[in-house]
């Protein structure tokens, strides 16, 4: 059974999650991808305050399609997380406590998740029409000039996620594959 959670997430809720857990996330998340990350980290490096207070918040690596009239959101889904690797440790150190994306992270980023007791969720990629139905509201809150890459505050309901990296460093990209390969080995033994 998936675990239902509400964002902003509490430290206790984050600490209880383990790699491989299925989660249905509701509440508020903020989109930010390549261009927004570059600006956020430039501001942090210059000691400036960010245009949105992201401390304790969840960041979703996503750039949705434009919202058609009469709909709550355009198509939406995760973009490849590894491109945000250079920006992730500074943002976690700043106070972002959960990230939604897709794909493996580098070792320095995994270490940063552990050091900050933060969690990395994976959303299923290539399911943007389905995921749009989990979005209740989209509002641009910063960097409007970046178009799809602006920072948007999303209100989400039951967004299906998998815990990819947990607070103790468990990584489901390695664990899931190991589980599968082991299950195949057992299958071929029993045949």
């Amino acid at each position, binding site marked *: 059974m998936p675990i239902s959670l509400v964002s902003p997430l509490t430290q206790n809720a984050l600490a209880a999650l383990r790699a491989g857990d299925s989660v249905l996330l509701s509440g508020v998340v903020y989109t930010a991808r390549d*261009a927004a990350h570059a600006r956020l980290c430039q501001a942090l490096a210059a000691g400036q305050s960010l245009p949105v207070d992201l401390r304790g918040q969840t960041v979703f690596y*996503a*750039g*949705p*399609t*434009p*919202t*058609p009239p009469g709909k709550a959101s*355009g*198509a*939406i*889904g995760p*973009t*490849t997380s*590894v491109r945000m690797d250079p920006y992730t440790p500074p943002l976690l150190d700043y106070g972002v406590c959960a990230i939604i994306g*897709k*794909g*493996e992270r580098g070792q320095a980023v995994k270490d940063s998740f552990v050091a900050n007791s933060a969690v990395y969720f*994976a959303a*299923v*990629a*290539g*399911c*943007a*029409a*389905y*995921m*749009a*139905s989990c979005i209740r509201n989209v509002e641009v809150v910063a960097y409007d000039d*970046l*178009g*799809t*890459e602006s920072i948007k505050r999303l209100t989400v309901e039951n967004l*299906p996620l*998998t815990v990819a990296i947990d607070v103790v460093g468990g990584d*489901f*990209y390695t664990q*899931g*594959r*190991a*589980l*599968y*390969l082991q*299950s*195949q080995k057992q*299958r071929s033994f029993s045949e």
Partner: protein
Amino acid sequence: MELPRIISSEQITDSIARLCIESCTVLPSPVATLLRDADAIEPFEPARDVLSLIRKNAAIAAEGRVPICQDTGMAVVFAEVGQDVRITGDTLENAVNAGVARGYTDGYLRKSIVRDPLRRENTGDNTPAVLHVRLVPGDRLTLTVSPKGFGSENMSRLAMLTPADGLAGVKHFVLETVRLAGANPCPPIMLGVGIGGTFEHVALLAKEALVDMREGAHPDPFYDALERELLADINALGIGPQGFGGLTTALSVRIKAAPTHIAGLPVAVNVGCHVTRHASETI
């Protein structure tokens, strides 16, 4: 003397606009078939859950005319222009770009193109397209739009191997590409492999192989066997849908080969996800 057949640039623009929207919202039926077949033999339950969500998403997208993926890509356009066609009005290139701008705007598709790779200002209408033109016999014009997402495009690779590297070298390069890509290109992936030609030609061969929607075997039994062998080897890696383990790392491997130089063995692997989009019209 035979007169050329007249096709107006407006007809081309209308067609491209339609194809942009159709390709971004309706999964090609050969891909839907590959997904159904993969779902039927996937032994790992979490992997089957992902495949079933992907198939459900495709149905929602087609029914509601919603993009299958939020990355509606860079518009790669193939134009096969009959030698007996004369285009009136604007140039082919302008007509195609006007169609992309209209399709991406009217269809509420994402604008993902920056004018300059280093200065990175968004063009605002997803133009320009990447246009490949080929002159063919006849008096027709066939347009194909294949919007390419960059999660998978970024994982593509090219190598100038040597004749001594041979078949083993090509196989190794393809598998290494998939292993390095891991979960990044949103598996289950589709692979287009180009072999031969020159440096720039082999990349185009790989792209053409990727968007080749043929159902059934490669016409050359040698390459048919190689496609099957590579697919089996890739699906033994265990990466699985979304990279969380499973049999279905790849749905298909398509190869396109061309004559090459005595000194060379170029190989290119164009990686696509299951959202390998493709829509065509003939005018």
